[in-house]
């Protein structure tokens, strides 16, 4: 197991190096000029050129890439062109809201979707199944921002139960923190619920056909135990896989959700940076998300050993 983990961590190095090269190159060839944005409309071309030079954007590609890579290896993601703040500080300012949103969404989605998928498979073809799958289709089909607006309209504007926007750090209290995140987490969670519920149902349908399930039922094992102890455990590997893959969905969805609910998270940081061509921030955030994704995949692989003892590394 340890050697597997070490091996996997070592393999992340070329992956991260490729991501770094790809992102840097993509931004290099992409149109747009942060110096022109900084200079503003009153600036002369000479002013723009001086700003570009002061930011080091006029230097050759290879020199810039080498400098940036050298700093990244040392853990320095550079300094934002616009805010003049270190990228690591900007990420640190934004990581808590995004992490909170993702964790809460994950918990909410798994708690709702897995039982929903199990029950839908158990009652396959019934109205319960159709309702669950109808909900799943809705979750896939309705854009995140529409769900967000509808929920905000109902629960914030009409009922006045929850705030429309913002984020309160957990250090300022659990309820204020949760209060700000309920609507965003439900909004973001719907598509995730749809995904997990459908996979859970499909996998469970297959497992429920197995001989050992029939044997358990014949032995008189309680239905909930058949479903949740015998069947779900054997259906867990694909479900865990899809939960992991869904993290990427969450990262993408967080961008929209954070905008709709004005949450100062990494998603908004990324969009703002892209619109302004704040290259160090874009590079830093993409690199960090890539690392997170690689680590999540490693975690999923390790989780397999917990849910299926036949899997060993």
């Amino acid at each position: 197991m340890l050697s597997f983990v070490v091996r996997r961590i070592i393999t992340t190095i070329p992956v991260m190096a490729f991501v770094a090269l790809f992102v840097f190159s993509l931004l290099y060839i992409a149109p747009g000029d942060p110096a022109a944005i900084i200079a503003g409309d009153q600036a002369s071309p000479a002013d723009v050129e001086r700003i570009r030079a002061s930011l080091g954007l006029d230097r050759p590609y290879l020199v810039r890439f080498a400098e940036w890579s050298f700093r990244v290896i040392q853990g320095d993601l550079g300094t934002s062109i616009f805010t003049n703040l270190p990228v690591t500080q900007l990420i640190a300012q934004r990581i808590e809201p995004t992490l909170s949103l993702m964790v809460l969404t994950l918990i909410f989605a798994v708690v709702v979707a897995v039982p929903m998928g199990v029950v839908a498979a158990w009652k396959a073809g019934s109205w319960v199944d159709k309702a669950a799958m109808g909900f799943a289709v809705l979750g896939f089909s309705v854009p995140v921002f529409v769900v967000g607006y509808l929920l905000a309209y109902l629960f914030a504007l009409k009922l006045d139960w929850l705030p429309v926007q913002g984020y309160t750090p957990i250090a300022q209290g659990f309820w204020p923190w949760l209060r700000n995140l309920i609507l965003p987490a439900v909004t973001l969670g719907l598509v995730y619920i749809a995904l997990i519920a459908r996979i859970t149902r499909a996998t469970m349908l297959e497992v429920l056909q197995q001989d050992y399930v029939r044997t358990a039922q014949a032995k008189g094992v309680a239905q909930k135990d058949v479903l949740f102890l015998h069947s779900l455990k054997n259906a867990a590997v694909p479900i865990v896989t899809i939960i992991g893959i869904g993290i990427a969905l969450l990262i993408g969805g967080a961008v929209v959700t954070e905008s709709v609910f004005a949450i100062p998270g990494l998603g908004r940081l990324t969009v703002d940076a892209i619109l302004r061509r704040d290259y160090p921030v874009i590079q830093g955030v993409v690199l960090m998300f890539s690392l997170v994704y690689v680590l999540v995949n490693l975690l999923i692989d390790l989780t397999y050993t917990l849910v299926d003892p036949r899997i060993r590394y």
Partner: protein
Amino acid sequence: MDRRTFLKSATGAGMAAATGGLAMPALAQSPAKTLRFVPQANLANFDPIWGTQYVVRNAAALVWDTLYGIDSKFQPQRQMVETEEVSSDGLTWTFKLRSGLKFHDGTPVTSKDVVASLVRWSARDPMGLMLRAIQVELAPVDELTWKWSLKQPFPKMLLALAKNNAPCSFVMPERIAKTDPFTQITEYIGSGPMKFLRNDWVPGAKAVFEKFADYKPRSEKADWLAGGKNILVDRVEWVIMPDAATAAAALQNGEVDWWETPLADLVPVLKGHKDINVDIGDPLGNVGAFRMNHLFPPFNNLKVRQAVLTALNQEDYMRAVVGDDDKLWKPLPGFFTPGTPLYTEEGGDILKKRNVAEAKKLLAESGYKGEPVVCVVAQDMAATKSMGDVTASLLKSIGMNVDFVATDWGTVGSRRAQKTPPGQGGWSMFHTWHAGADCINPAAYTAIRANGDKAWFGWPDVPAVETEVTNWFNAKDLAEEKAAMGRLNKAAVENVVFAPTGFYLGYQAWRKNVTGVVSGPLPFFWDVKKG
């Protein structure tokens, strides 16, 4: 610990947290003396000389004071300055600061700070550059006095120091002002009425300002950037909201107090809310612009430019930008801001009535051979997107070959600086808008300049325009200024420096428990009270 004890303590802790027993106030529950404001854009940097975005200027006006301030009659009034004196030949200006002014770090404001600030500002500002070009000496005389000697008179000196167009001549401590004007400052210390709380700044989310207790306001009543800047709240929090619908909901829900630029589509909802006031934000509005590239075909041909101007119907553009609300737009047969003292329509008849047949005739006479018109249109700005759609239709209607490049503002910002032909990474036209405050006269109106290579993007070269700009700068009285402006407008229309697509305004909205909000070219926080 047994199971029962554990459950009891866990429940207790959970209840305490859930009821806020462990909690600090959330954003929506901030103290009553905190004014929460949704600005027009993100405050991504905070150096008003290095970056000249309006949002930076607006925040900077809270933190840094100016020597003079422009009032609602467009007159420069003393602000940090106690007295000024100009020599009889107009070549030497001597200024004296008000005594007792302090920076936020407690140090006194001195003439050395002023001189260093003016040096930095004048390296970036168009009027500052004009002053530099004729400068003999800018130096402190004593602790509170400084002198500016020139080679030739500069009648617009006070306007240059008072103007609200970015970059404004904000006064910073000498050590900060000595930063290269093309490098960002790292300390945000001014002598303005509010302090910037750097540690609370989350770019893209929040910026916080706190009342500066040692600020010494003038005794006169506040009038835009002039007069006594009395702050009546403890804190001003800028809450950045990229989504207009969210901002509208937050205002309705009382989570924010004041929204600088509500989307026109959402205004009817806000107007219908019992706790919200809605009124015009900036009375100087914006001038929509169809900017043409004068270097390459087809717009290097005057007749093609005139053809576009002849076919252009400003109402089409304005309806696309502001919708059906007639209070929000005006036709603009010229280039200058309506309702301001120097406004003129001289020579603007061509813009008053659309004539497609005449436009087609002009196009035929121009020898236009169907060259593609590369329209570089930013889709992430509502105004440019709307104007771009109208333009594509307009150009096609007179028989032009449109190559529509839908892109974002970041790309437009860099592409418009390209002087290569349109087919090789260059461009033929793009849309933008100019703040009406910049268009009240030629002082800060870089887009009206037509000095070829040195002109704004599109690089028009029209000596008649430049002559009148010079005449305006040298004008000795209002009558001379008006005459120069009339001739300038006429020359700019005749030569189509750019095509104005109309004049439009925007609303601002605020909760009814907030008083003292005024219409102005930027949000003024002085005299604004909450509760």
